[in-house]
């Protein structure tokens, strides 16, 4: 598999060229590459290391302690809900948002691909639209809508309505890639001629073939929900990011701030790394 990818992706510099003039240029290029990788590598890794170091800070500056990490489960400050409840809410929001996004998008996308081709462009446009409308703009218009929602429920879980919209572009692209990789028409014609209903075609024939895309959509949706701050904060709800922000306002140097941030980051990184590895495995096989 690796060989195939290597051949198809031959970069500008590694092809066979006259050896003599190649050698000096190659040395210069390599020196340039190592400088770039080292400098930017440090730029990317240092802030993360600083965060980790501060999360392990003891009472006195320069000492080590795991207190901040143990505090994640128990931290509570006056005037704000306990940290753990904010974490729970955020995880619940992530799950609900995933379920709703998939339930909304997967059948619609398959249906459009099979029966209403002329709507394809419109659906794509609508799904990618949230990329061009910043969350801070949406929140201005959401005020009146959330006023109505709050008549029914005051729970922070109601944020999922808008989080689905935020996740749409990422979920759409993941699902569209999966949908393009399979022959939807043939699959559905085969199933239909064997007597399957449209429901069976969508849920039991095509959706299982989009497993990888669905997994990608789930991971990206999780990452979106875990990092969301703007809408929750301005609609006066509490999620993890809002909670961290309030802690930082009350006690700017609370160790728990850094341990929770780092834990959340690590979690998001793992999700996205799974995504990038799973994605490559699929491409390698195909």
């Amino acid at each position, binding site marked *: 598999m690796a060989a195939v*990818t*290597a051949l198809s992706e*031959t*970069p*500008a*510099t*590694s092809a066979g060229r006259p050896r003599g003039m190649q050698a000096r240029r190659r040395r210069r*290029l390599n020196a340039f*590459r190592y400088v*770039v*990788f080292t400098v*930017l590598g440090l*730029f*990317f890794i240092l*802030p993360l290391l*600083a*965060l980790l170091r*501060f999360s392990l800070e003891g009472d006195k500056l320069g000492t080590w302690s795991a207190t901040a990490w143990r505090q994640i489960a128990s931290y509570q400050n006056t005037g704000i809900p306990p940290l753990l409840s904010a974490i729970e809410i955020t995880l619940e929001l992530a799950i609900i948002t995933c379920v709703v996004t998939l339930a*909304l998008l997967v059948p*619609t996308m398959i*249906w*459009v691909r099979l*029966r*209403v*081709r*002329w709507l394809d462009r419109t*659906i794509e446009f609508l799904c990618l639209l949230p990329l*061009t*409308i*910043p*969350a*801070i*703009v*949406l*929140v*201005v*218009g959401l005020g*009146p*809508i959330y006023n109505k929602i709050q008549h029914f429920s005051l729970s922070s879980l109601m944020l999922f309505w808008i989080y*689905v919209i935020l996740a749409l572009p990422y979920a759409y692209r993941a699902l569209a890639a999966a949908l393009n990789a399979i022959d939807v028409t043939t699959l559905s*014609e085969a199933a*239909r001629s064997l007597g399957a209903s449209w429901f069976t075609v969508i849920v039991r024939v095509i959706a299982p073939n989009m497993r990888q895309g669905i997994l990608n959509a789930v991971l990206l949706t999780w990452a979106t929900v875990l*990092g969301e*701050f*703007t809408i929750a*904060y*301005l609609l006066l709800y509490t999620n993890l990011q809002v909670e*961290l*922000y309030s802690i*930082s306002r009350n006690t700017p*140097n609370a160790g728990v701030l*850094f341990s929770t*941030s780092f834990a959340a*980051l690590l979690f*998001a*990184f793992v999700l*996205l790394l799974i*995504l*990038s*590895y799973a994605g490559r495995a699929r491409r390698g096989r195909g």
Partner: protein
Amino acid sequence: MAVAATTKTDARPSRAGHRLSAPSWVGTVPFLAYVGIFLLWPTGIVVVDAFKNPNGAWAFSNLTELGNPLIRGYFIGSFKLCVFSSVVGAVVGAILAYAVASGDPDGVVRRLYLSSSGVLGQFGGVTLAFAFLVLIGPVGLLFHASWYFDFPWGIGLIYIYFEIPLMVLVFLPAIDGLKVQWREASENLGSSAWQYWRYVGGPLLMPAFLGGTLLLFAAALSAYATIQAWENQVAYVVPQQISTALSSEVGLSNVNVADLLALGMVILMAIVMTGYALLQRRAARWLR
């Protein structure tokens, strides 16, 4: 053509079925309704309310308020920050993308930088500001940068942190699309490395580079969490001022300021993203 053919074959079974059934677009109604309520309606509210005064009456004169020095100041602030961070982010990102592309296409370095770019490009929000605070803030581990709280330098550096990876992701396909044959052809015709980049490589990559810069600009423009966690006492950019206008206790007289600023952002984003789409189309011409 393929599309048209599929549509025809798809349409046949339903017609042959002789069953009275709803038109097939009905299946998309739940999705369209959802997007209508939670995406199009709020956007519509913003646009309409920007032209109304707080009492609900039409006031098209509101638009002149965009020229108000105070409001213009926030747009200029946003502009400064976005130009600084997106230009630096794009240049550095392009250099990194070139360094990545010129290596072994299946090597560890390329894989490492590509997957970390996917991760770090998504990294933003409150935690990113914390990370830089403990690195170069007042109690910074590395050193205390006296300019950490200076606008746009301090926050610009933080934005660059997520903009470089974004640029790598957008720009790498363009560099990978440069064909060896083009370089060989120009060398056979006697061009130097400089001439190759000046007359062949540079012009080929330029649309992708400018498009990437615009995308970074848009990302910086819409970011709010990071700058709010960086400094919440002073509003420098439009998103901060929108949030102030939304949450201020002054009451109704301010509500439409938020709508107006939001409308300004929508217009700006529309211009930037249209430019991005056009440049991407131009760039894609060579990426076959």
